[in-house]
């Protein structure tokens, strides 16, 4: 059974390449800040503090919070890239993380060569790799650019290619940072359908974004991070109503109920629930 559990995860960033003395001053000066010292009394930034939650099949978690609240760090910790300073992470399921649009890609190689490298990373053999290639090619729809070095792509094209590569191999858990929003509307719609299809297969999505509309449409649970701590955890509209200024929240609800008419059952249910 696919699941992702985070038990009291804390992440401290060491501050090596900085002036210790002036930092110690600021540690003493700003009591409420996020600077601290580790066991060896070296200065650190407390990027995440006691993050605990469990995700099961079908959960689509949205991460919101201001810049520097720890969203990307949490995604990196969940990907297994950062070994946590405290706590335990337990994951069951094939995980793919889309943290930066260029992640894992060699900018000097062509799109096709990058897809082949991804296939090797996934441990694919010849026929599997060929299927991955054709699938990514049809989904990304970047035409002849697939045979040009990635360096020549527009940022939108890179997003298309990266998203196609990340989702083509059917990850059971997909972690995405907000850069995906660089795609155009048509692509976002396609991407959303693909993620929905994926989540229908009882899988997990974690998405960090500043776009409340995207969060409200894509997710069925939201965690609000602030200063590296969980400030709120619940249904998207409940959390967003606290997070957003009142007029922005009203605009969001209005825009959702417009699109919801087209037939997004999940959102309509939520709207009714939060109305009542």
């Amino acid at each position: 059974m696919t699941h992702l559990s985070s038990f009291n995860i804390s992440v401290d960033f060491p501050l090596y390449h900085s002036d210790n003395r002036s930092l110690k001053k600021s540690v003493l000066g700003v009591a409420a800040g996020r600077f601290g010292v580790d066991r060896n009394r070296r200065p650190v930034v407390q990027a995440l503090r006691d993050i605990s939650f469990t995700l099961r099949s079908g959960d689509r978690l949205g991460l919101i919070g201001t810049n520097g609240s720890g969203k990307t760090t949490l995604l990196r910790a969940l990907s297994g890239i950062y070994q946590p300073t405290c706590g335990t992470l337990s994951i069951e399921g094939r995980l793919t993380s889309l943290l930066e649009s260029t992640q894992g890609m060699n900018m000097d190689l062509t799109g096709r060569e990058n897809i082949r490298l991804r296939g090797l990373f996934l441990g694919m053999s010849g026929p599997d790799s060929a299927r991955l290639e054709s699938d990514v090619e049809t989904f990304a729809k970047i035409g002849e650019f697939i045979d040009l070095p990635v360096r020549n792509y527009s940022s939108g094209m890179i997003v298309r290619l990266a998203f196609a590569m990340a989702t083509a191999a059917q990850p059971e858990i997909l972690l995405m940072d907000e850069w995906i929003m660089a795609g155009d509307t048509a692509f976002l719609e396609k991407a959303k359908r693909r993620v929905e299809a994926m989540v229908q297969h009882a899988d997990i999505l974690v998405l960090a974004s500043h776009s409340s509309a995207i969060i409200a449409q894509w997710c069925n649970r939201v965690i609000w991070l602030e200063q590296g701590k969980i400030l709120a955890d619940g249904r998207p509209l409940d959390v967003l109503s606290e997070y957003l200024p009142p007029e922005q929240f009203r605009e969001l609800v209005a825009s959702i109920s417009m699109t919801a008419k087209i037939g997004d059952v999940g959102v309509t249910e939520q709207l009714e629930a939060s109305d009542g």
Partner: protein
Amino acid sequence: MVDLTGTDRAIRATLRQPLFTTSADRGWAQRFRLVTQDVIEGFVLWRLAWALGVADIRLRYRGSVLGPFWLTLSTAVMIGSMGFLYADLFHTDIHTYLPYLGVSLILWNFIGSLVLDAGSCFTGAEGLIKGTRMPFTVHALRSVIRDAIVFGHNIIVIFLLFILLRVHISFYSLLSLPGLLLWLVDGFALAFMFGAVCARFRDVPQIIGSVMQIAFFITPVMWNASVLAGHPGADLLIRLNPFYYLLEIVRGPLLGDDLTFNMVAKALIVSFVLILVSALAFARTRGRLAYWM
């Protein structure tokens, strides 16, 4: 989407463990378990490491007519010109000195590239390390493979040299192969150690560069070890020089010199210590590497 059914899914399940746990550092037992896991997972992905290494070389020479054979050509030109100059300076016979110099320089370049590239194997893969969870072993392997490919192109020069100067070639030369294999293992270990140290302390690559330059002059590469025979005390340069033993177990057989047990044993001891220290260094730093990028 790619349909993964039946055997595909089974293969995937064995290749990529679906169950993954990580936790805060819990001491040496956990660290060594993670290192073992990293190395095993990394070797399973050897085809990825190979493809990355080959791509590095190809990109370096993309658009050039000779491609990687520029390596061969530039090495040949260097050895040719240096050979004539130094044979004259050292008053030696070009027919004995040139093969010695050629083999020594090409082998030393391989050692040098293994040591120098080891330092950048993790910092050079920053994008991959911060983007996905990938065994660090892949980056270490990639660096060793890249250097081995360059060395492979330079071997051609050794063959040319031996044929042109009519050096006697026998099957005895094949005894250098186990030595080369040991070099690859050493280079792999070194990549873990220097890769981690250089990621943490960004001054170390420069220090390694300077040390390697000194090592080049105090190791018998351009000059023959026999010139130290009449200088008591100076032979410490050789006796305490780990590079000398490693170089000699490959160069000796190639030039038809005797491969003594003493020499092999010392090369093995040097390698053993290197691997041990590297394992400790990598186990200690593995969990922190991503933070240092």
